[in-house]
């Protein structure tokens, strides 16, 4: 990213993600209805509101600290599977970024790799299981390969779309078996929003 992601940039990113979650809460919930229990949008909305409040209160000094705070707040407020999974992603990514004042796209990719590995260790999902990992993994791989945040966002969006035709093998959607085909995984959809929010800040501090 040029210039790189700072603490302020990380907060802007999460602010844009929270706005996107607000705008898409009903869509996310609709995605969750046929295959889950219709609460993904509402739960994530509650979590991101708590994240913004926690960041206002704590005012973390580095992008790593911002993500760490955001992650632990999600773990403490969301519940369900998405709280621990999204929370762990941000928490471990933040921890991996350490004390750096700012991080470029490659460093963010390395940090997100640590977060991705923690998510797969916790939830046990792999690419192809129709979960948020289907959006997250290609985005991380794109950054690791030197891609821009815009390319990472595109990879996440393609990954989310790929869950339409997959049979879920993890989480509550897995009980549907083949009846789940034709439905986009809500966690993959919100993960695509997270990376779209990152790319949206391109002109304002990331590339």
């Amino acid at each position, binding site marked *: 990213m040029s210039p790189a992601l700072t603490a302020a940039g990380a907060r802007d990113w999460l602010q844009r993600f929270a706005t996107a979650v607000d705008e898409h809460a009903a869509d996310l919930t609709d995605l969750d209805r046929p295959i889950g229990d219709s609460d993904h949008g509402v739960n994530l909305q509650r979590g991101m509101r708590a994240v913004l409040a926690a960041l206002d209160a704590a005012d973390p000094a580095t992008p790593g600290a911002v993500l760490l705070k955001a992650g632990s707040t999600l773990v403490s407020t*969301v519940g*369900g599977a998405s709280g*621990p999974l999204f929370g762990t992603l941000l928490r471990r990514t933040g921890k991996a970024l350490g004390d750096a004042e700012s991080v470029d796209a490659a460093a963010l990719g390395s940090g997100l790799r640590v977060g991705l590995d923690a998510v797969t260790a916790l939830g046990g999902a792999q690419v192809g299981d129709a979960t948020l990992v289907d959006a997250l993994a290609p985005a991380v791989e794109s950054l690791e390969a030197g891609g821009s945040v815009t390319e990472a966002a595109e990879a996440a969006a393609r990954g989310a779309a790929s869950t339409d035709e997959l*049979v879920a093998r993890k*989480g509550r959607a897995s*009980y549907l078996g083949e009846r789940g085909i034709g439905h986009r995984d809500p966690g993959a959809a919100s993960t695509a929003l997270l990376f779209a929010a990152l790319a949206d800040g391109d002109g304002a501090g990331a590339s």
Partner: protein
Amino acid sequence: MHVPTKLLDDPADAVTDALRGLAAVHPELTVDLEHHVVSRNHDHFGDHRPGKVGLVSGGGSGHEPLHAGFVGLGMLDAAACGAVFTSPVPDQVLAATTAASSGGGVVHVVKNYTGDVLNFQMAAELADDEDIAVETVLVDDDVAVTDSLYTAGRRGTGGTLFVEKVLGAAAEQGMALAEVAALGRDVVARSRSFGVALSPCTTPGSDRPGFDLEPGEMELGIGIHGEPGRRRVPVPATGVAREVARTSVAAIADDMPLDGEELLLLVNGMGGTPLLELQVLAGDVVAELTARGARIARALVGNHVTSLEMAGSMVSVCRATPQLLQLWDAPVRTPALRWGA
């Protein structure tokens, strides 16, 4: 779409208000309205027992009386109540664990749903940081999920009641942490459940039910949120209870031989089916089980593990042993289950 009128004050506060109500009528319980944790009021019970193994469960709300209604003498020490159909967060489970801890360690009874598993796992790590030893008993008694390799595995459903009652008695009798956990895993291994939905349910604040079920259809093999397991079939013109009993018992017997077994039996309502109907079903279920060579040692009929106002049933059995029967019969004093105390 007709949305049923809910007897609530504010849908957003449904869980908090329900816990406030529980506290209002049960002085023997301590209700932490910040964490949504219900625990025993030890002063009321006079059961300060240093070293007793604590028994904690929890999960999404909407399954009442599970779990908070099973807090009390001879059963749970504490329950963490999440939002409706959403597992509690680790902080809540930690608060319940701390409330239940008397120095002998704590057993977490966790229904096998991804959210519950992840949040309890994180809570167990937090408890470890506070030097509370935690053992986890994962309940996965639901036989409707056949393809465990390709799913999140069998779900925790009606058999949770057997686990909470038996382990509560065992802990009360002074059994140590590792033994309580091992006993819990044995009860899970001996328990099987199969659920049927006749109508869906609507979470408070939502404007439509969580899933659609056409008139004249029933969903076989549901979990406790009505999520599907096997298939949707037409409701038979007559003998609905007989058909549900036959299907449920056959699914269980295909998975766990019942011939010659003594059983704990739970004929459970999902929340919206009257006791009259559950009694009809109970008669049909006992006939099916008896025809397969099983003997009913103890039976419970009622709404114990529910899914809001969903109509339908869940049949749960546990292959008993003399030890399990003794623990089942031990005194229990909770809002929803009470005998001998």
